[in-house]
C-alpha cells in the first residue's frame, strides 16, 4: 500500500509527465557526436515529481536507472560501493542536496569526482533557476545545456536526464569543484534538486581495486 505521501507524489509525477509528452522530441541537451560516458547507474529521487520524471526519461532511454528515495544509503551499500571496490564506474543522477553531498564525499575515497552538477532551484514565482558547476572545458556545453533546460520549462528534468546520459567523456572531473555545501544558500524558495555525473578523477582514491595489498 503506498503511503499518502507516496500517492500524492506519484500523482504529481504523473501530471508532470503528462505535461511533457514530447520529451523525446524536445530539443535536448547533450552531445550527439563524440563519445559519452557509459553509465553504471543512474539514481533518482522519485519522492520529487521532477525526480520521477527524470527517472522515467532515463528508463525510457534504456539507462540502468534506480529509484533511491530521499537517501542514497541503500544503493551505496548494495550497488555502488561493491562495484567501485572492483574498479571505477560512472554514476549519475537527480537527487536532493544531502544525497549528492554523501555521494560526493564517498566518491572521493574511490578516486571518483564530480564532472558537473546542475542545481535546479525554485525561484518562488513558479520558475526554476538552473546553475551548472563544472570544469572550464564545459563552458560551451554548459551554456547550451542551460538554455535547453530553461527552454524546457516544467519539463526540465527530462532534459536533465538526457544531459547526464549524453555527458561527453571528454569532460573530466575538475578538482577545483569543491565538495557540495550542505547549507542551502539564502534566497532560494525551496529545496534545490541536483543533476550530476560522477566519473573517475585524475587523482586516484585511497580505496578500490588499486588500494589492495600487492
Amino acid at each position, binding site marked *: 500500500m503506498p503511503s499518502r505521501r507516496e500517492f500524492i507524489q506519484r500523482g504529481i509525477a504523473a501530471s508532470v509527465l503528462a505535461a511533457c509528452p514530447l520529451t523525446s522530441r524536445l530539443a535536448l541537451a547533450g552531445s550527439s557526436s563524440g563519445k559519452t560516458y557509459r553509465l553504471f547507474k543512474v539514481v533518482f529521487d522519485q519522492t520529487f515529481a521532477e525526480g520521477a520524471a527524470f527517472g522515467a526519461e532515463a528508463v525510457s532511454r534504456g539507462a540502468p536507472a534506480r529509484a533511491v528515495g530521499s537517501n542514497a544509503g541503500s544503493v551505496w*551499500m548494495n550497488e555502488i560501493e561493491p562495484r567501485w571496490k572492483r574498479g571505477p564506474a560512472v554514476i549519475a543522477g537527480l537527487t536532493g542536496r544531502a544525497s549528492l553531498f554523501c555521494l560526493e564525499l564517498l566518491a572521493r575515497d574511490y578516486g571518483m569526482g564530480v564532472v558537473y552538477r546542475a542545481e535546479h532551484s525554485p525561484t518562488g514565482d513558479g520558475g526554476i533557476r538552473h546553475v551548472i558547476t563544472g570544469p572550464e572545458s564545459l563552458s560551451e556545453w554548459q551554456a547550451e545545456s542551460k538554455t535547453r533546460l530553461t527552454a524546457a520549462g516544467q519539463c526540465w528534468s527530462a532534459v536533465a536526464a538526457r544531459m547526464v546520459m549524453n555527458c561527453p567523456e571528454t569532460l573530466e572531473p575538475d578538482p577545483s569543484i569543491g565538495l557540495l555545501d550542505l547549507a542551502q544558500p539564502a534566497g532560494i524558495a525551496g529545496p534545490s534538486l541536483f543533476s550530476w555525473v560522477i566519473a573517475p578523477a585524475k587523482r586516484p582514491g585511497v580505496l578500490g581495486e588499486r588500494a589492495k595489498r600487492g
Partner: protein
Amino acid sequence: MPQPPKGMSDRDFQAALRRIREVAGSEWVFSSDEDVELYRDAYSPLWGEEEERVASAAVAPISVEEIQAIVRIANEYRLPLYPISTGKNLTYGGSAPVYSGSVVLDLRRMNRILDVSLRDRSCLVEPGVSYFDLYRHLRQEKIPLWIDTADPGWGGLIGNSLDHGAGYTASDFRDHFDAHCGMEIVLASGEVVRTGMGANPNAKTWQVFKYGMGPWVDGIFSQSNYGIVTKMGFWLMEEPEAALMVNVTAPRRQDIVPLLDILTSLIYSHTILSELQVMSPIMNGSPDPELVRLRVAGAGATDQEWARYVESRNQPCWAASFCFYGAPKVIAASWEHTKDRLAVISGVQFRETASYTFPLTDEQVDAVADKPRLGIPSLNLFGSRNSPTARPSEGHLDFSPMVAPRGEELLALTSVTGKVYADMGLPPPFVGGWIYHRRGMIVFHPVSTYRNAEDNQKTRALFERLVTACAEGGWNTYRIHANFQALAIQTYGFNNGSLHRLHETLKDAIDPNGILSAGRYDIWPKHLREKRA
C-alpha cells in the same frame, strides 16, 4: 602548496615525506593542494578562516610494518602525524587534524575483517572497516549476528569507538568502546602492543575476555593521542527472533519525571534493552510567541501555564520511542509489563510502530524506516532532511552534554541552554534525550555550521557559551568537536586540572617527541604545550 607544520623547515618536511614515500610507495603519499583539500573538515566552524585546522599531507599505509616505519621517521623529524580510521568524524572534526600541518595517517586501506566468530559473537577488524563493510560481510556470509552502527554507516568500528561513539541496538553493544574486546596498538616508539588476552601470542580468548592481567590500559587509547590502533575486537549481537518498535506518549510537561523514572527502571531491570529516545513534540513545535515565552521562563513557568499551552496544541508533551528484541513471547510479555508500569501516568498512550521477524529479505531491509535500531547501516539521517518538505540542513556540530536520565535534569538543562539561545537572540533549542550509554542520557543540541566566517563566528560563540553554562550546572559534554576540546577539558578542572596534568604526564612518557595527534582532547606534547601556555 600545503604548509609544513609550524616550526618545521620545508627542507625537513620534504625530506621526511621522501623517506615516507620510500616506505609506503609514492602513490600513497598525498601532498598536493588538491590532496589536502580532501582531508578538510566539511563541517568546520572555522571554514576558510586562517585558524581552520588543515593537514599538510597524508599517507595511506597498508600494514602494521609500514606504520612502524613511518612512526620511526616521524620521530626523527618530529613530524606530527594524525591517524584516522574511516575518517568520517563529521560534527566532531571530520578527518582534519587538531594541529594544523600534521600529516594525516590515513588507515582506510587497512580494511580487512580478520575474524568473525559466530560462537563467540565477536569480530576482529582493521581500522578501515566501515559499518557498511562489516554489515555486508555478515549478510553475504549469512552470519546471524548484528553490528551496532552509528547513524551514518560510512563511519567505522575503530574510529567511532575511539571517539566514544554510540549506536542504537541492545545495551551491551551501543557504547562502542565499551563493546570492544582487545586491541593492537603501534606506540609512538614503533613498538606493537596487544592488550588483554591478546598479549599471549597463543591467545584463544582475545575477543572473549577484556582484561588479561595487570592494569587494563585500553581506556587510555580512546579520546587521546597515545598510540595508533591497528586492530580491535568487538562483541556482536546475536540476531534476535523478532523485534517490536514502540512509542509511548505522555500528555503533561511534568510527566517527564515519572516517565523517565519508570523507563529507566525498565532499562536497569533489562526489560528494555534498546536505545531509548525521548523528545517533546510540544517544545519542539514551531516557536510561536507563547512557546518562546514559556521556554525562556524556564522554571519560572508554572505547570498550569504549560498545561494551558499543551492543551491548545492538542499534542502530547512527551514521546518516547524504543524497541524490544527477542522471542515473540518474550517481547509480548515485556511490552505488557512496560504498559502496566507506565499506566500510572494518566493519559499515557501506547503505539506499536513496526514489528519484524528475522532474518529479513533485502527488500525488507530496504523498507525498514528506523534502520540503526536493527543494526542496519544507512545514510538515512542525511536523507530525512532532504524530503520534499524539509529544508536541507547545514553542517552541524553536536553539543552533547551528558545528564542522568531523569526528567528534572532534562528540564533543568534545557532551561539553561534555552536561556543561552535566548540571550543570543536565537529560537529555543531542541528538547530531547538519547539513552545510548548504560547509565547516562545525552541531550543533543545540533548547532549549525556554515561556509562563511560571519555565521560561523556566531556558531562558535554560541557553542562556547553552551559548554560553559552547562558545565557550571554540572553537565559536561561526553565528546566534542576538535575546535572546542581545550575549552571542554577546562571544565574537567577538579583540583586545578589534575586529570589533565595526568594526561600530559602520560603523553610525555609514551610519546616524548609528541608525534601523535598533537592537541587531541587538549593533550599537547611538551614542546607545543609550552609555546601555548
